[in-house]
């Protein structure tokens, strides 16, 4: 087993690169920063891979189950005798798997950006932010304490904010960054209160102790289920609130509105953060607390329904979007919905844990092909200088590598065997089938729609229009992109990650996840039912063929379809007006009816009262000061009158 100090290096290499670049490198060796960042992540990846090998094949398994290991724990902040934030490292199947996913995708993105971001003014800053993000994400997956995960959760949020707002001179990027941060912050409020509830009843913040206390028949479990608020137990409240936090980060309906806007960031960032790593943090969080969730079916039902509805809604919206990155964003949301409801259909232990395993499996495969899709889209955008489908078409000859790897990714996400997505999706569908037939129906419908919109995207980029409009693109941009005037593909640094991820998208489906990552650590026997797979694959193929018919050549059919389904089309095109609802609530209700009155009240009532005190004093003083006229004779008259008064008093009343 690797030493603890080497495991610590996994998250620390990227943060060291962040510090080096932002404090020294940005000024002194800006062009070397990219290589520095890439090397640091390469180091993390190699270490992670070693840890994964060691964990899964050498030391992780004790008896027949993988154990949780906590090689490091530092008391960071002691709240009360047993309640403390400990910074620690926890290794178990999901955290080790996430280590590999995060470092691998991050490495690919670092490498890819060497070419993609070349010549950017803030190239070094970009790499320092990437380092910060990678650090935060690694810290998140390694957390051994629920507050630690919350801390890194926030750090991930802020690095995402910085990266979305990378082009800070673009107002749309700034507002997208702000939106992403605020929406997830709002969700984190739920997470925070959930933590408070769970930790109060379990008397600890440590994951292992908490899970133990809230799953065994302990006093803590009894009090938390006995305590109820508004008809639900404290346990359910706590878990649902924690899930709200997860749903915010994972862009689940109705907290998903930030994800499409987040595409304002540079495309490699979208691949890293908004496809493969950060957005699955919510899934990871639910998986981390899964034993506790399993004891509260109501909470898992909520997870399931939120997951499946997000999945379906996002798929429908993705069908009509024209910005290729937004299509991918909605597809991400849809796939994460898949992972979520898969968790919702599972229960802790044994056969019931199929959905858990499937969800983690899908998380893994999805990271590969979705990163590939985004990087491929990045290559296309790099060449076309536009995000809009209408500016693309017929690029297959110009960009053969991109075209081929993109096709692989599309097949993978559509669930066509033998690509990776097929295997994980099959497991999810099986779990759904056993748990709830309605969920299964919706899931399989979503699968078909997924195939359709992905191939709509594929055909629109690489086929559709007969001629590659290379000329027009170059007219518009002139010498700026002279370096790729003769070929469509970017430099080798951009192609190699595509190829690697393309190979992985084929290969990772064959990893025996059922023996490695399961809810209770024990191997899970799964059978492969050929008959069960037929329906989903057929439906997916059907989706592909519809897309082929609609979009392979330019045709009027899609427009006619859109016209005939005009209400649905418009709803989907406008993302079901969810953004508008939020805007209405904030801009039309919260600001004018809470913020402005508060400010008005403060200026006029509270402050007015103070000013009134002052002015009353001033008035009284104005009345009294008239007596001090400065006229000596008046003073003398008062004096004399006073003396006479005293005389009278002494003579007549005193005696």
């Amino acid at each position, binding site marked *: 087993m690797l030493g603890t100090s080497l495991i610590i290096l996994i998250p620390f290499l990227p943060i060291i690169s962040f510090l080096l670049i932002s404090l020294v490198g940005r000024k002194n060796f800006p062009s070397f920063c990219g290589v520095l960042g890439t090397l640091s992540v390469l180091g993390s990846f190699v270490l992670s891979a070693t840890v994964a090998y060691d964990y899964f094949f050498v030391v992780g398994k004790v008896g027949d189950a993988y154990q949780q290991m906590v090689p490091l724990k530092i008391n960071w902040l002691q709240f009360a005798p047993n309640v403390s934030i400990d910074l620690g490292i926890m290794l178990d199947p999901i955290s080790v798997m996430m280590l590999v996913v995060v470092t691998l995708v991050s490495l690919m993105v670092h490498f890819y950006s060497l070419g993609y971001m070349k010549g950017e003014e803030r190239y070094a800053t970009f790499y320092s932010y990437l380092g910060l993000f990678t650090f935060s994400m690694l810290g998140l997956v390694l957390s051994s304490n629920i507050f630690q995960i919350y801390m890194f959760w926030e750090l991930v949020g802020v690095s995402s904010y910085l990266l979305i707002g990378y082009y800070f001179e673009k107002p749309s990027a700034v507002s997208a960054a702000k939106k992403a941060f605020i929406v997830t912050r709002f969700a984190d409020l739920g997470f925070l209160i959930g933590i408070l509830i769970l930790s109060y009843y379990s008397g600890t913040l440590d994951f292992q102790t908490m899970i133990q206390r809230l799953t065994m028949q302990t006093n803590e479990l009894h009090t938390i289920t006995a305590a109820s608020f508004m008809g639900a137990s404290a346990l359910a409240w706590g878990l649902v609130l924690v899930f709200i936090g997860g749903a915010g980060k994972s862009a689940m309906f109705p907290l998903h509105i930030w994800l499409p806007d987040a595409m304002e960031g540079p495309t490699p960032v979208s691949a890293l953060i908004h496809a493969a790593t950060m957005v699955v943090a919510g899934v990871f969080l639910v998986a981390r607390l899964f034993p506790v969730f399993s004891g509260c079916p109501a909470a898992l039902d909520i997870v399931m329904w939120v997951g499946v509805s997000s999945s379906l809604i996002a798929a429908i919206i993705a069908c009509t979007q024209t910005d290729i990155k937004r299509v991918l964003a909605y597809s991400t949301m849809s796939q994460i919905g898949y992972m979520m409801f898969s968790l919702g259909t599972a229960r802790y232990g044994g056969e019931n844990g199929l959905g858990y395993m499937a969800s983690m499996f899908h998380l893994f495969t999805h990271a590969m092909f979705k990163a590939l899709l985004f990087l491929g889209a990045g290559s296309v955008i790099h060449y076309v200088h536009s995000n809009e489908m209408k500016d693309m078409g017929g690029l297959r000859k110009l960009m053969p590598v991109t075209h081929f790897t993109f096709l692989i990714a599309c097949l993978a996400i559509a669930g066509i065997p033998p690509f990776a997505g097929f295997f994980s999706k099959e497991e999810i569908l099986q779990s759904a089938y056993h748990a709830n037939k309605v969920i299964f129906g919706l899931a399989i419908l979503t699968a078909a729609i997924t195939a359709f919109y992905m191939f709509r995207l594929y055909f629109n980029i690489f086929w559709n229009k007969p001629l590659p409009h290379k000329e027009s693109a170059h007219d518009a941009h002139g010498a700026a992109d002279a370096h790729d005037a003769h070929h469509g593909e970017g430099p080798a640094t951009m192609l190699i990650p595509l190829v690697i991820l393309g190979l992985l998208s084929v290969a990772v489906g064959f990893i025996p996840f059922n023996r490695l990552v399961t809810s209770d650590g024990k191997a899970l026997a799964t059978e492969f039912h050929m008959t069960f797979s037929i329906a989903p694959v057929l439906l997916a193929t059907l989706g592909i063929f519809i897309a082929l018919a609609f979009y392979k050549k330019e045709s009027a059919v899609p427009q006619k379809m859109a016209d005939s389904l005009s209400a649905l089309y418009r709803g989907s095109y406008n993302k079901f007006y969810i953004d508008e609802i939020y805007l209405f609530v904030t801009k039309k209700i919260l600001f004018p009816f809470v913020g402005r009155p508060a400010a008005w009240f403060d200026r006029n009532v509270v402050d007015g009262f103070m000013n009134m005190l002052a002015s009353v004093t001033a008035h009284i003083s104005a009345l009294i*000061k008239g007596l*001090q*006229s*400065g*006229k*000596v*004779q008046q003073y*003398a*008259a008062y004096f*004399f009158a006073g003396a006479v008064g005293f005389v009278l008093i002494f003579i007549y009343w005193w005696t």
Partner: protein
Amino acid sequence: MNDIGLFHFLFISCALFFIGVFGFLTRRNLITMLMSVELILNSVNINLVAFNKFLFPDKLDGLFFTLFIITIAAAEAAVAIAIIINLYRNYKSIDVEQTDTMKY
């Protein structure tokens, strides 16, 4: 009956006092006001002397007080006239109505 008694002295001093007060409160000229103040002081002097003479003929306390007051009145007159002259230099007037800038 023909003797001049304490009552006559008190009557004179009382009259002087009120004439002084009246002058002090009504006249606008600072010099005249100063003179009124002198009248008031002198009325007090008469009182002291008269009470001494009629009530404690074997003591001299009243006379001493009177001497003190006369001295102080002289000093006071000197200071007051100095102030008045300064006022006149600044305001070109010794009207009391115009010397009210020291209010508040």
